[in-house]
């Protein structure tokens, strides 16, 4: 497990580097309610960017705009420097942005391999696939095992095991593995540790580091300050519908972050 050491060899995002994903001046209003006043966000290659904010700070709306779940009224989203428009979560997925929703979006009755390939099943080559629509189960299973073990989720008892027979952390592992397997640009995780115990939460954190170390930048939305400070490279603080600032776990303490989040302290100028 190389992930622990990678915390020290932390990538240093600098202003010179081009962001993988960038939001500029996103606005989203629902009638008189402003969900995002000015949504700005930059995600750099190889980093874990945590997004924190009080309830109603607009972090969920911001993330939803990035993963295609809502369409912003104005502003722009750039992926690898190119302007993109997402009309549905499927658009964002096709562009390489995978999201692990808080609700997990796994089908409990289906097995691990089925869930990994849910909605993107692969058919057998030739007539079996084209005429009889036969799934290439063998290939999907071996791919599923490869993805799971690449992420250090030591092969579970059986890749053909129903997801509902797994623990919360294991399920989260399946969801993260799916995102990592299919996300080519960005993985977005919404409260991945919220429903988990301490031990399982830590394992999921490890999983997130592994995803980052494989080269996929991660956006992590979390209320859990210790978790955020443990794994984030940078911390985006959202407040009152806009970005208050960006800090790092080294530049600020947890209580300072909370103070900025709640408006008790002046936000410092953003890093990188």
């Amino acid at each position, binding site marked *: 497990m190389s992930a622990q050491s990678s915390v020290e060899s932390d990538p240093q995002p600098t202003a010179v580097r081009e962001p993988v994903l960038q939001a500029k001046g996103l606005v989203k209003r629902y009638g008189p309610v402003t969900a995002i006043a000015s949504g700005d966000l930059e995600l750099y290659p190889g980093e874990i960017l945590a997004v924190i904010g009080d309830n109603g700070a607009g972090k969920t709306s911001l993330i939803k705009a990035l993963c295609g779940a809502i369409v912003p009224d104005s502003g722009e989203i750039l992926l690898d420097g190119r302007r993109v428009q997402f009309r549905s979560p499927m658009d964002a997925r096709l562009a390489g942005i995978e999201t692990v929703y808080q609700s997990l979006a796994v089908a409990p009755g289906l097995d691990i391999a089925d869930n990994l390939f849910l909605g993107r099943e692969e058919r057998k080559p030739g007539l079996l696939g084209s005429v009889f*629509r036969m799934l290439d189960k063998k290939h999907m299973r071996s791919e599923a095992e490869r993805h799971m073990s690449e992420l250090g989720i030591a092969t579970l008892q059986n890749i053909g095991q129903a997801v509902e*027979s797994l623990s919360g952390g294991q399920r989260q592992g399946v969801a993260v593995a799916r995102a990592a397997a299919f996300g080519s640009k960005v993985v977005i995780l919404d409260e991945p540790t919220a429903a988990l115990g301490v031990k*399982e939460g830590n394992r999921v954190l490890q999983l997130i580091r592994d995803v980052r170390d494989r080269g996929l930048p991660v956006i992590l939305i979390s209320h859990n300050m210790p978790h955020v400070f443990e794994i984030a490279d940078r911390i985006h603080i959202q407040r009152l519908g806009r970005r208050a600032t960006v800090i790092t776990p080294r530049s600020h303490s947890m209580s300072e972050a909370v103070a900025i989040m709640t408006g008790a302290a002046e936000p410092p100028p953003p890093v990188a």
Partner: protein
Amino acid sequence: MLGLRVTTATKSSFAEQRTVSPLERVQHVLHANPILGPLAVLVLAVLAFSLVSGRFLSAANLGLVLAQVTVIATLALGQTLIILTAGIDLSVGAIAVFSSILMANMATGLGVPGALALLIGFVLGIAMGALNGLLVTRLKLPPFIVTLGTLSIFFSLNSVISRSETVRGADMPAIMTWTGDTFGVGGFRITYGSIIMLLLFAVFFYALGNTAWGKHVYATGDDIEAARLAGIRTDRVLLSVYTVAGLIYAIGAWILMGRLASASPNVGVEYNLDSITAVVLGGTSLFGGRGLVLGTLVGALIVGVFRNGLQLGGVDVVWQGFAIGLLVLVAVAIDQWIRKVRA
């Protein structure tokens, strides 16, 4: 072997160890192999009734049981698909009977050739199923309400078109009652309708287990929101399921005409609940996402074996319903228990 025990953690695996009580073990086995319970009931029932009556295991009687369950099994197949999506179809009997009336009246009244009448009947069955599907997906009405409504509508149209008159099989082209003809295998007499029914089960056994459509049917019934977030067009899945079920019911109508050697507008009321009974006894969960079509076949056989065996044993017909009802309650209770399986 069935994942009863979890291995010790290696690396960052999430595995943990825990001891498992024998009862939990049974629960896990049934959970992993939902066909086992219904099969055990069927085997026990066959053993018990063969002790009660020497005639039960005779080739003639077993052939009769198969012929008797063929219609219900076919309708229950369509019902299974819908229940797998966490829906329910109360209009199954109405669609089947109305389809048979339409087919028979086209052939006898309008002089449409038999094969064409069947084909048009299948298309009308598809249309009735699709109507259910559209109401469920477009108007977002609960399947229970939608099919309760269409049940009434189809039965009413059925009475109008048939003028409440039965069409005799002798008046129809031979192909329309061909499903009731038999052929011999050893001492057994098997109807062509039974063969069609078994072929349908084979097709959907394959489709549910080996195609993306099948996976999407399970995922939609399991957790529709999760399926949608995974990129599955759940409305399309639901519409396809109701439509395909309509076709299956219409094929069931053809088998029904063979079985009764007529097309009668006055049968079928009990088919709704009988088909649901077969599905539930077969281990498919009414909550969706869980179950197997083969279970439904076993469930239909359980109903057939019970009715037949109780009759051979001299039990009054009125008590048959009692026994079946008891079985259903036990089956649902066991399903609930299995669903509470611990991770």
